[in-house]
């Protein structure tokens, strides 16, 4: 890293105080860069303005719109645009890093309003969408302004190439690997246990696939138990479970980081039966770093994260029988399971923030070549002059 300290502006499109992968990524990156001594400001929509850290500026309250099979809490419109412009012109940034700039959000507005070194990170992986093709011609010149593009996975990269005909450098999402390195094995979670972490009520997380596979697994491993961690109202899900299998389930609710590390060290297998909508699979990287042997569905994001089965076993997505087969195979062979977990743990170190943030920073350095900071774009300057207000 260079000795020069930078002023970096990060734009997060989704509500800061709502849970989500992009928000976590932006928060971790911001905190990493601050720890390295850079000045960082994050612009994000915020619901509760009293409960945000110093480095976050609120762009207003997010609104909920359905997007990519989920509800996205984003923000746009003229007032938000004014806020974005004000933030850019007051911030005197050396560089802006925009997250998910291709969806209607403050990231797109910032990309439109700014001129200078702009780095964009694309998180989402989606199937071909006609809507994006329709607005492509408008989006194209804006996305084109990005000096460098980052995709978090091969899946996100191919989404980008398909929809906007531009390429990107792949830099994975980051995890704090050392938080998961030294989990303690807890007796109540070990044995023939299958772990699952996530918002299990969402169908795309695939808990129902695991439910369907369980009767078959139980026939071969009579003492198998399923431990489910994560927020949600477990009553509703429990009612769906076959009464004969109910005693095999344990719902832990939301767990702390320490508990998560212990959880990952204790369970025999970590199961990720997601049916889609994942772009990277950060939880798999964490599970690997925690030393768990992983069984995951073969959706593109997981397939590429697990190196086509090299660092974790894959089963055919949405096929409970195949899941059961893979799980039984691994439960029977302790040795195979242990080597898989060890290989995965060593591999997961490359997702550590120390590696990932250095990669991102070296892209920053490249974007900074021959520039003198971020300003409002000339189009907006002319417009401001026309309206009689100097933006900068």
């Amino acid at each position, binding site marked *: 890293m260079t000795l020069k300290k930078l002023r970096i502006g990060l734009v997060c499109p989704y509500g800061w105080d709502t849970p989500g992968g992009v928000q976590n990524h932006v928060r971790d990156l911001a905190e990493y860069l601050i720890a390295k001594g850079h000045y960082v400001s994050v612009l994000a929509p915020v619901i509760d303005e009293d409960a945000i850290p110093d480095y976050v500026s609120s762009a207003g309250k997010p609104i909920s719109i359905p997007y990519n099979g989920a509800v996205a809490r984003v923000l746009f419109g003229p007032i938000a645009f004014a806020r974005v412009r004000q933030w850019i012109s007051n911030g005197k940034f050396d560089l802006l890093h925009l997250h998910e700039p291709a969806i209607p959000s403050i990231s797109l507005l910032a990309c439109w309003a700014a001129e200078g070194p702009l780095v964009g990170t694309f998180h989402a992986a989606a199937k071909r969408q006609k809507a994006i093709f329709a607005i492509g011609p408008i989006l194209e010149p804006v996305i084109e302004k990005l000096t460098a*593009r980052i995709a978090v996975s091969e899946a996100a990269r191919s989404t980008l190439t398909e929809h906007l005909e531009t*390429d990107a450098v792949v830099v994975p999402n980051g995890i704090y690997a050392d938080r998961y390195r030294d989990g303690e094995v807890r007796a109540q979670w070990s044995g023939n246990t299958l772990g699952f972490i996530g918002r299990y009520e969402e169908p795309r997380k695939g808990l129902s696939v695991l439910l369907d596979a369980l009767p078959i697994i139980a026939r071969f491993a009579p003492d198998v138990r399923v431990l489910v961690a994560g927020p949600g109202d477990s009553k509703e899900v429990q009612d769906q479970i076959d009464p004969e299998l109910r005693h095999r389930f344990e719902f832990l609710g939301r767990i702390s980081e320490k508990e998560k590390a212990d959880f990952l060290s204790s369970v025999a297998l970590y199961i990720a039966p997601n049916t889609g909508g994942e772009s990277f699979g950060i939880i798999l990287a964490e599970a690997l770093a925690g030393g768990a042997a992983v069984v995951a569905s073969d959706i593109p994001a997981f397939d590429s994260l697990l190196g086509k089965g090299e660092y974790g076993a894959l089963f055919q997505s949405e096929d409970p029988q195949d899941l059961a087969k893979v799980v039984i195979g691994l439960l029977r062979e302790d040795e195979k399971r242990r080597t898989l977990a060890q290989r995965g743990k060593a591999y997961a170190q490359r997702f550590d923030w120390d590696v990932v943030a250095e990669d991102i920073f070296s892209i920053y350095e490249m974007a900074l070549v021959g520039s003198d900071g971020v300003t409002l774009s000339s189009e907006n300057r002319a417009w401001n002059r026309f309206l009689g207000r100097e933006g900068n």
Partner: protein
Amino acid sequence: MEKYFLIALLAIFALWYLSYSATRLDRLHHRVETSWANLDGLLQRRAAVALEIAKSEIADPASSLLLTAAAHQARDAQMQTRSQAESGLSGALGLLLNDGHLVEGFIEKDLLRELSELTDKIRVAIALHVDAVTRTQMVRQKPVFRIFRLAGTAPLPVTYEFEADVL
């Protein structure tokens, strides 16, 4: 009267669109230049590191000679011979580093680490540059840009051969 108003409005929009497109293309040309400057700088640094390696314990006299020649060639190459020179240097470095002999000594390890970091960066820099170039070529193909000669006298950017093969 209304007709003239409409025509005037259209004319204003057309003018705005042309100015907007010209800005867009100008920005792309700028991106091509800065991404090339970045790549060029990294390649110069690689040549410097290659010279250091040639002088160090890593290289035997024969490879040292080869590497020194290749590094100097890459440094001094004119635009026309740049591709050949950079590929030559990649080849010479590859020959030396892929023969599997173990490197000892602190300075030598440091040099090799620097080289591999540089190689990673160069790979990214090439991707950025190629992206800027293809983007610019694509935009300049569009009818509006061709008919109104929005590119002016700027030369059409090209990618070099060495950028195609992975280092």
